[in-house]
């Protein structure tokens, strides 16, 4: 720090010296608060993990131990042995990847044209809200009839199509928000350069909305992975089930294998933790555009 004759500058220098110290102290208390809040909010997930590795006897004891005692690691081996968990995991992955890919393929062009058409904003908003008023339980029956007519019942494709139909409206709306931020000037410049409409769209506009595609992708992944109603009704044979459907089938009428169920839940959450850790940054930035630009 350079000494200065100007008292104002000296004051500023002093302020600059103390400010970071104060700010750092405040940052510490935010950190402490964040740890406490995270511990509270994620406790259920922690408890799921603990329950999946504890022995039945300690789960049903009067004096619960809040720490894992790893009494029964066999619950994982057991559910893999007793149920087609591996197959369900693959089915869930196929459905999730398929739904995400198809949703992006449909929602990106739709979002682009909504953004470039004059009435696009209202149309997108109304359609997005409209699909949110139909109860999923109500859609299940017509879907069942439709897919049985075209012989798609009991196929993963039927669930992919059903999922996509519910993801696309909001996804297109998010994508519209992103395309709204791409200046039309850039596209006009590309057009003057001799770019056709297709090339302008694919080579100029789409690369500029990559974060939006990321946001749409994670939205689609979370929704498709989580889905229960459609696979439950459209996939009839256990070998076609997804993790969600399989897991619920572990809940018996009178007895529940809590160990196995918690192990199943942990398996169901892990892939999302991974996907989330990778794609989470897109989520906030993605919704920044989607939420604020109509």
């Amino acid at each position, binding site marked *: 720090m350079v000494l200065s004759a100007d008292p104002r500058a000296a004051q500023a220098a002093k302020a600059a010296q103390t400010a970071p110290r104060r700010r750092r102290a405040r940052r510490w208390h935010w950190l402490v608060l*964040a740890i406490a809040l995270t511990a509270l909010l994620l406790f259920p*997930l922690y408890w799921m993990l603990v329950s999946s590795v504890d022995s039945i006897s300690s789960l049903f004891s009067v004096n619960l131990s809040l720490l894992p005692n790893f009494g029964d690691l066999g619950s994982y081996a057991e559910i893999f042995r007793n149920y087609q968990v591996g197959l369900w995991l693959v089915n869930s992955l196929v459905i999730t990847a398929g739904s995400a890919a198809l949703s992006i393929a449909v929602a990106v062009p739709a979002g682009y044209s909504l953004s470039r058409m004059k009435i696009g904003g209202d149309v997108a908003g109304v359609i997005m809200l409209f699909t949110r008023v139909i109860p999923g339980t109500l859609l299940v029956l017509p879907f069942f009839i439709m897919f049985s007519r075209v012989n798609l019942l009991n196929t993963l494709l039927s669930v992919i199509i059903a999922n996509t139909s519910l993801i696309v409206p909001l996804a297109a709306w998010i994508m519209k928000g992103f395309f709204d931020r791409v200046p039309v000037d850039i596209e006009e410049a590309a057009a003057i350069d001799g770019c056709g409409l297709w090339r302008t769209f694919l080579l100029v506009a789409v690369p500029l909305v990559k974060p939006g595609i990321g946001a749409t992708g994670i939205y689609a992944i979370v929704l498709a992975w989580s889905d*229960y109603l459609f696979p439950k009704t459209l996939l009839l044979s256990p070998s076609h089930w997804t993790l969600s459907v399989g897991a619920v089938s572990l809940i018996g009428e009178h007895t529940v294998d809590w160990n196995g169920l918690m192990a199943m839940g942990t398996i169901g959450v892990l892939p999302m933790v991974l996907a989330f850790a990778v794609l989470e940054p897109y989520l906030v930035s993605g919704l920044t555009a989607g939420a*604020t630009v109509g």
Partner: protein
Amino acid sequence: MTATQEAAVAAPGRPAPVRPPRRLLPTKRTRFHLLLMTPAILLGLLVLGYPLYLVISASLKDIGILSPSLLASAQTTTQNYKELGSDPSFTQAIRNSVIYTVGSTIPAGVLGLLTALLLNQKFRFRRVFRTLILLPWAVPTVVASFLFLWVLNASYGVLNYILKQLHLINQYIPWLASPHWALVGVIIPTVWKSYPFFCLLILAALQTIPAQLYEAAAVDGAGAWARFRAVTWPGISPAVYLAAVLQALWAFREFEVIYPMTAGGPAGSTQTLAIYLYNEAFQFFHLGYASALGVVTIGICVIFVAIAYPRMRRNLSRS
């Protein structure tokens, strides 16, 4: 390339750039835009339009099992809608739906707001905490549902255990087994699963508030609360409003949290419209009646949207 480049370079200097005839371009462009919309429109008609048509026509028929051939032969009747008026389960389902929707949306909104404000501060490992705090959103709904079935278990649930250890309760609460508590029991996982949605939208809005506004407020000597009222809240209220509308619509039709936990019981205390609809359709095979319930659900949501949309639109266009 050289010719087009020349044109591009020359364009800014010229007062009137050479453009293709204007009339031709828009039609071609509009056609292109419509082409890009086609898959989305087809998907919408196929998987939303047709089901809606089926459901509305089924609600006007006296049928048990839904099949297109039955639908065509059955007599048209308004009986299903008349029955609604004298059905106590229907009134209870509406009451439950409203309590469940309001009771989960408000706490989720408050929790989402608090977490978003925290995550918007600068501190170490902020990104890690952001991922962790948003994580419940990525937990599959049915996993959240049976996880809380376990956490809220009347005899062995960890929540009862902790509350008792902290001397907050004397006796274990039968969260899901008593008609008094069951609605609270299904609201808890709903709040847990949906606060990240608020957090996410609010966080996104917080990041669009210019830092200069806070600096200006600090210069004016505004305290934390005054800064929140004058700068933060105006910046995020459109996002809060949007999230609340979307969340309420979601909760009103929610099935996957409640059904695996209680299937609407005990004694119908958690039977919302969506659950009632499902039970009527798949347990009792009253398809016509279930469809009528569905149409009423849609009707209520549409009215809600019609009330909420103008303000949402104003908010959006202002920002």
